[in-house]
């Protein structure tokens, strides 16, 4: 076996490993989301994440991949449906390895979107929206940037998917949380908000750690190969930004509220990861630290802003993936170095490296176009569903928890059954 064949093999192995790591991020989301919400919904949140991953996989295989990478136009791809290319590697990745990596990104984006649905959406809505998001919303944005669509032609830099994966998911989450309205008990009549505390900070922390590890596949395998060892640089930038994000968020929330709040600190690490996702292959390590720090600071104020705007975002998906996703994408326009952009014909260098405002403009255009598309289409779909079948469970179901109302058993049966019995007795007595 010659050296080139070995390199091709290693490239394929690395990206396949990346696919596995990215898929494991779903496990991180299960723990993050379940830990950040209440006990009565824990089983539901864990279970729906698994079955929507199943739905997303099948839909992406059937049509999603084709809409992204199929032969088509600047707006959408139109071939390669029901993907089944078993050809061997021809000097690069095998098509199946590439597909396996791509499908995992779609699942991550879908799971981010569902963060905005937490603790009050009907199970049927999860099923329908999982189909439509994986078939239409995500693939179209991905086609624009990664599939040779109109934004790719502009030189948009999104190394691992800050816009495609995170912003798209966050915009769908925003549409959902706006239509669903806040959870019962989140806001008081006088306008003040209550902190509906998550039930397990250890779960949340473990979720973040799993996501952090998974991100090495997310960003690292987005090099699509190992030949020049560039993946090490990407991993370095990823690690630095995540650390900086956690530190910045903890000190910021401590300075503002006097308490080093744990959930906010954890969101800071995620913010660092989201922020560096677009730029991890374009910027120097010092810039990765700055990008992560700013992401960590932003997430604290963004969470406060959404709270003040009465947009109930149970797991801070809008702030972590939306607000910080935008920052991460724009940061390329500031920090991209010529050697990793202009000189390899992937967009322009950033403002701080003599590239002027060109790349910043392209990045902003990408954010606005992709964000607006994802939000508007999600909003239309969800509004229509709301009018036809209703997005939200009934008040009684929400109070008893989605574990019992949607699935028939609690994730924590010993703890929840007594409460449920009391609720049922009270309801009966009132009648």
């Amino acid at each position, binding site marked *: 076996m010659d050296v080139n064949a070995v390199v091709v093999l290693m490239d394929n192995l690395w990206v396949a490993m990346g696919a596995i790591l990215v898929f494991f991020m779903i496990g991180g989301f299960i723990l993050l989301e379940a830990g950040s919400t209440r006990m009565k919904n824990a089983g539901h949140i864990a279970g729906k994440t698994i079955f929507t991953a199943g739905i997303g996989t099948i839909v992406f295989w059937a049509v999603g991949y084709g809409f992204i990478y199929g032969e088509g136009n600047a707006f959408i791809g139109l071939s390669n449906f029901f993907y089944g290319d078993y050809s061997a590697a021809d000097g690069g990745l095998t098509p199946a390895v590439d597909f396996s990596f791509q499908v995992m990104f779609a699942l991550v984006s879908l799971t981010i979107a569902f963060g905005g649905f937490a603790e009050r959406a009907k199970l049927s809505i999860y099923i329908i929206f999982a189909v439509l998001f994986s078939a239409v919303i995500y693939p179209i944005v991905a086609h624009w940037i990664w599939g040779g669509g109109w934004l790719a032609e502009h030189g948009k830099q999104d190394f691992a998917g800050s816009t495609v994966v995170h912003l798209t998911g966050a915009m769908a989450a925003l549409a959902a949380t706006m239509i669903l309205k806040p959870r019962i008990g989140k806001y008081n009549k006088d306008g003040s*908000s*209550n*902190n509906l505390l998550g039930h397990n900070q250890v779960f949340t922390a473990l979720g973040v750690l799993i996501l952090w590890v998974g991100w090495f596949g997310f960003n690292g395998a987005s090099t699509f190969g190992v030949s020049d060892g560039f993946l090490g640089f990407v991993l370095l930038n990823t690690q630095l930004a995540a650390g900086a994000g956690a530190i910045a968020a903890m000190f910021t929330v401590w300075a503002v*509220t006097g308490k080093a709040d744990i959930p906010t600190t954890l969101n800071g690490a995620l913010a660092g990861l989201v922020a560096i996702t677009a730029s991890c292959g374009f910027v120097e390590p010092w810039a990765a630290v700055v990008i992560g720090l700013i992401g960590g600071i932003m997430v604290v104020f963004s969470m406060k802003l959404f709270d003040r705007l009465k947009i109930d975002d149970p797991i801070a998906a809008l702030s972590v993936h939306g607000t910080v996703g935008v920052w991460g994408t724009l940061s390329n326009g500031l920090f991209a170095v010529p050697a990793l952009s202009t000189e390899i014909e992937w967009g322009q260098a950033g403002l701080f490296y003599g590239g002027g405002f060109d790349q910043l403009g392209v990045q902003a255009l990408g954010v606005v176009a992709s964000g607006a598309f994802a939000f508007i289409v999600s909003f239309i779909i969800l509004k229509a569903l709301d009018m036809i079948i209703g997005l939200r469970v009934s008040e009684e179901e929400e109070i008893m928890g989605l574990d019992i109302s949607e699935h028939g058993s609690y994730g924590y049966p010993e703890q929840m059954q007594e409460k449920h019995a009391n609720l049922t007795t009270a309801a009966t007595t009132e009648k």
Partner: protein
Amino acid sequence: METYESIKHWKDQNISSYLDTNQSLNDFHDQVMSKVLDVAMKKLSKYNIPCEFTWFITGSGGRLEQGIVSDQDHGIIYAKSDIESDAYFLALGKEISVGLNIVGYPYCKGNIMSSNPVWCKSFVQWERQLFNWMADESWESIRYLQIFYDARELYGNTNYIQELKYSIYQYQIEHPSLLHRIVANIKHVRNAIGPLGQIMIEQHGKFQGGINLKYAAFIPYVNSIRLLAIKEGILECSTLQRIEVLNGMEIYGNVLEGCESNFSNLLNYRMTFLNGASYDDTHYLNVRLLTNEQKKEIKRILKDGKSLHDQVIAQVLQ
């Protein structure tokens, strides 16, 4: 004949006439609680009062610092312990607690009430209990000791409380470690001013945007002044009276500068702004209701409180 309900009615009708000053409000509370004691004693009138006794209130009531709504903190000291006395005074304590609750003083969550045998004892038993608390030096016993030090009699023999407080003073002279244990007990103070110099407010909930005056402002002043009172054997109960006595001592001149007016202003702020219906309502000061000048003053009071607390602790530990 008066009943608890009629006292409650009278209290609700008249309390608004006593909101001019902290002193008048606390005098009014004293009157109400004394009436409750009268009714309780009448309810037990088929029994003879077995011996002389003192009924005291403590906590904010003992310090003459009650807000409009306050929970109950009280105890009984009686002359001698025997089966009849023990049974009578515990029954009286229970009756008083029920009565105060009806009149509008919620039960004490920490069970500091005459209905609890720990707070209803003969003088000798109290002496022994205080000694055990001081010797035990556990977190809980030191907390109880400080609560007792704020006791003020509303009925009966005044000497009991004075003598018991004096015994605490004597003990700490012989055992300096006691003051160290008290310091450890009160050391934690909630951050009132943030690292950026901002007033720390509640982030969520019914009192979003409010300062918890009890924890952020009152406690640093009350605890540090009580600590000095125990050290110096000052038997006065209210924080303002204690400050007045301490001001007469040269060694505290610098530490206590501005302390009296700060604490007095704090009481006034509470009287002016915190007249809600529940116990919690009387603790949270909404910053948005304050003028810029008032915000500045509150910030200064909070900062000075923390500084007083730190300086007093440093001085006691020297």
